[in-house]
């Protein structure tokens, strides 16, 4: 199907089904029940799942295949966001031009950054990319204020030219749309005490994500993808095999920069505002965590990692001590307080602590990330012959 091997086609279909039914899958608990706060099926968060999924898929093409660890990918995300925002200010609130231009602008920017950074490898490459990202961040805050809005960032304003759009009705605010379909519009479906939300923006982002995922599978299985893995494995041999590694790594860098730009453009399409903090180095670090948590060099890993981190960031951080008290109300008073005190550092603002612990556990016990964990569980259920485990990129453990 679509030129994919059976195994990859099955994976793509599985992801498509999961993404299509995500509003159901992520809302397993009825409204008003104690567990309802673990529901992740609201539009804002679902959009973030798929957008950061795209970001991580792209990052994995660079880091997972070539082994070049970029610490500045948030810069491309930010540049993509600004580009999309300007399209919305100047052309139209339709998201298509914004998304297309964000990919192009991020591609050009990553070509420039990659051209310079790829002169070095290893830690020096990482530091060069980090320097570029921090430079972009600082510039966006200071001298580039006319372009970036500085500290206030950019939002679409009623007074923006928007040459392609008809004049706004009096009192209306500009809203991102796809040929009239507003990104923020949702259909709600109540079933008993369950409430499912189907958001237009989420499905637009999800379709883009599926296309991005499909492209990454094609890249992984192409000769180009194999050369990228060869770069990671042994650059010396590649050079002495008559292959010039520079264009390969640069192409991988630009492709992953374009994925980041795409994610940035989608962010603006879903939530029409952008600020420089999007380019801060912690944002670059986050995508590294996502990729490693999910499984470096695997197809689906980055998406899982992005989902896991965004889930924790949005769900775990919302639990406060009051909620804990209601959970453990069945315990005797003294014990209740004790248990709550014990758990409290790991929730709410302390969710980073939980993330850190999980991350350490994954790196130590599952170097192949969540994907390796899944494979281990799958192996427990069906004892396959070891011959099936051909080293084909997906099952190859990451270094």
């Amino acid at each position, binding site marked *: 199907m679509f030129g994919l091997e059976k195994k990859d086609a099955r994976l793509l279909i599985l992801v498509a089904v999961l993404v299509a039914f995500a509003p159901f899958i992520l809302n397993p608990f009825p409204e008003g029940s104690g567990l309802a706060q673990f529901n992740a099926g609201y539009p804002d968060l679902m959009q973030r799942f798929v957008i950061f999924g795209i970001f991580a898929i792209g990052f994995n093409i660079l880091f997972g295949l070539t082994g070049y660890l970029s610490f500045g990918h948030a810069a491309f995300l930010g540049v993509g966001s600004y580009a999309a925002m300007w399209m919305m200010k100047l052309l139209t609130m339709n998201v298509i031009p914004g998304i297309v231009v964000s990919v192009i602008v991020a591609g050009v920017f990553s070509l420039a950054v990659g051209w310079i950074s790829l002169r070095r490898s290893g830690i020096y490459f990482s530091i060069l990319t980090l320097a570029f990202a921090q430079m972009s961040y600082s510039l966006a805050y200071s001298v580039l204020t006319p372009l970036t809005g500085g500290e206030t960032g950019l939002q679409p304003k009623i007074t923006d030219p928007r040459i392609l759009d008809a004049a706004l009705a009096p009192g209306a605010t500009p809203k991102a749309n796809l040929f009239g379909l507003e990104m923020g519009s949702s259909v709600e479906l109540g079933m008993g005490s369950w409430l499912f939300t189907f958001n237009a923006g989420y499905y637009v982002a999800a379709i883009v994500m599926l296309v991005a995922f499909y492209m990454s599978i*094609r890249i992984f299985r192409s000769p180009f993808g*194999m050369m990228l893995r*060869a770069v990671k*494995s042994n650059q010396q041999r590649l050079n002495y095999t008559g292959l010039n590694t520079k264009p390969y790594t640069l192409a991988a860098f630009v492709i992953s920069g374009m994925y980041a730009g795409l994610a940035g453009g989608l962010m603006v399409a879903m939530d029409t505002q952008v600020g420089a903090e999007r380019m801060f180095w912690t944002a670059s670090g986050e995508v590294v965590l996502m990729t490693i948590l999910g499984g470096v060099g695997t197809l689906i890993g980055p998406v899982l990692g992005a989902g896991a981190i965004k889930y924790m960031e949005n769900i775990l951080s919302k639990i406060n001590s009051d909620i804990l008290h209601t959970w453990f109300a069945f315990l005797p008073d003294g014990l209740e307080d004790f248990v709550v005190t014990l758990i409290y550092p790991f929730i709410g603002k302390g969710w980073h602590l939980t993330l850190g612990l999980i991350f350490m556990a994954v790196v130590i016990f599952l170097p192949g990330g969540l994907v390796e964990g899944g494979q281990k569980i799958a192996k427990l259920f069906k004892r396959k012959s070891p011959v099936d485990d051909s080293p084909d990129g997906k099952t190859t453990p990451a270094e």
Partner: protein
Amino acid sequence: MGILEVKNVGKRFGGLQALGDVNLSIAENSVHAIIGPNGAGKSTLLNCLVGKLIPDTGSVMFDGQSVLGRKPYEINQMGISRVFQTPEIFGDLSVMENMMIPCFAKRDGSFKPNVFINMLKDREIVERAEHMLEEMNMSDKRHMHAASMSRGDKRRLEIGMCLSQEPRLLLLDEPTAGMARADTNNTIDLLKQIKEERNITIAIIEHDMHVVFSLAERITVLAQGTPLVEDTPDNIKGHPKVREAYLGETQEAA
């Protein structure tokens, strides 16, 4: 006129004259060994041939074209393949993929962004790689992780990868270093077989005299960065200068 002509090559590292004034001519379709004690400049010379180092003086001509100033990948594309002292293969990739990469490089050149081709559907490359694995007697290992093979198998794969590109000159840098005796003998047999079956020139740098005298048709002895003598193996064995500089001690060791 040999296929590889090295003229007046010199290379200096700081205060050390690694290569003095090397003249070397390797005849087409011959097996030429370069031997010499440690520090004689063998590896430096080899690195000058493949573009890793650029000599300070002199010229290196391959088939009438200068290789100086060209990048390693360009020199490879000219028809020179190199086998390293420690097998350099793609350890994270399968044996089959290892073999496919040089096949792609041979057909598609130094860079081709063919992103939308399924590499397993490229019949020409797959067949070529499978054929080469068969020739190397490695078909049964095609799905193995290259890094998990024995040293001898890695060497065999590396040589196969080089041969798949049909090079005109194969450079071997101590191909049996660190190998068990059985693996060494297998490698010798493999190289003999290659020599018989292909139109190929082989230049070999080697410490192990057993390997050198089983394979070489001409031998150049390097000492302190300059060629001492160049002759046939039989004459080299009895050459007084060589005995003095080098062979005396190693023959006892071997």
